């Protein structure tokens, strides 16, 4: 095993309080990206 994630980073990744705010942030960000619309590509480049 090679430790590739530092102890501090691991603490941040698994701390429920920090991760709660991350959860809110991620939910909004994912929603904006996914529900942010989609469309064609052909007219755009004409």
């Amino acid at each position, binding site marked *: *095993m*090679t*430790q*590739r*994630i530092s102890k501090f980073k691991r603490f*941040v*990744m*698994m*701390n*429920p309080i920090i*991760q*709660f705010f*991350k*959860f809110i*942030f*991620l*939910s909004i*960000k*994912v*929603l904006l*990206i*996914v*529900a*942010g619309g*989609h*469309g*064609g*590509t*052909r007219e*755009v*480049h004409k």
Partner: protein
Amino acid sequence: MSKIVILGAGISGHVAASHLRRKLDKTHEVIVVSPNSNYQWIPSNIWVGIGRMKSKEILFPLAPLYKKKGIGFKQAKVTSFYPEGDSETEKPFVVAEYVSAEKKGETERITYDYLINATGPKLNFETTEGLNPGTNKTYSVCTYTHADHANEGLQALIAEMKKGKEAKIVIGTGHAKATCQGAAFEYILNVEQELRRQKVRDKAKITWISNEYKLGDFGMDGMLLSYGSNIMKSHEMVEMVFEDRNIDWILGAGVNKIEDGLAHYETLTGEYKTIEYDFAMLIPSFSGHGFKAFDKNNNDITDKLFKGFMIVDADYAPKPYEDWTVQDWPETYQNPNYQNIFAPGIAFAPPHSISKPRKSPNGTEIFPAPPRTGMPSGITAKLVADNIIDSIKNNTESLHHKGSMGNMGAACIASAGFGITKGSGVSITTFPIVPDYKKYPDTMGRKLGKTFGEIGLAGHWLKLMLHYAFIYKAKMRPFWYLIPE
């Protein structure tokens, strides 16, 4: 009055049926034809496969819901298409064979005004000799029954490991052209965490085997993504996770034969190798269902509808990899020969792979097929439904709703371990799914910021929330349509 027939009741078919029923009045018929009696939320099969969720939590029966909502349901599998009708039946129709107990074996001609082919993929286990879930110590998590078997196999192995057995676990793709690496990626991380939870991790050697050229390809040619304040390539991110979890990897591997505890594979360098295992979960290749199509004179016109999967408004002209563009990808999922037939989700034939095609010196193509699962399946199904609704309401063909995978974002919330406080997830979003190298030339065809990765407990919560939200939506509970695809 129009009659819309939807083939398949997976993510794509069910989304299309739900929106059509909600937006069309009851003078129009919406009929779903599917051999499956249950709806299943496939992304949660990962948790069924490690025993942290029961299969009954990810499925529900379709017939009562459809009856309540006024959607017709025929538990049958389609065998052939007659898009021009025939000498006996004037309207276009499909031939379906019932699989439900009370009508088993009976066939019916189901006529339609609009047809949505959302039959998804055939899980093509037979193209890899010996790859049959539940035999030769290999398993799958592609369906809830497969995931149940995988869990039984895994728990039996863990019991042996608790008695001192040293085990080899292999997880990845079971064919040179398989796709859906994301599911295998989730499963390997969940298995690793489950072994740690059951305190037998030190007894296992876990290996990732895949047809990807680099880790983190996922059939999308990898991606450049924002990770915190850094910008990194997806293979660097996955490499970091695998090294940290002590997972080995074999890349560019086309698995071609399975024997009891042995996976034979060919590498991109042309070598033939074998890996031993005590438990393997290998994703099979996906293929079309082998449907046949006939014109009104009963001549075979299968090639007007199918190219393995269904032909849609993509550019299928063969051309070199360097000439592929994002504009080759379909926008409306309409069959060019029959304007009342559509194929969203996995059912449409992609114009080409997204990952760079590679061959071994022996001529074997070893690279992932393009993914169309999950979110793109839902989005493309909804836009197809919206176009049909507009066409019916306006009484003229309407194709205003467009959604190319080259102009669509997707989120892959990959579980990396189950548990409210001990769980983890690798959340990756990508925009667009098919890289647009002209629009985003300096960032590997994708928009940074909208293409990002995160690792941590929040990812697990997000995936769990999506599980409950999408099952709520699929059950068409109040205001279900406010939850986006």
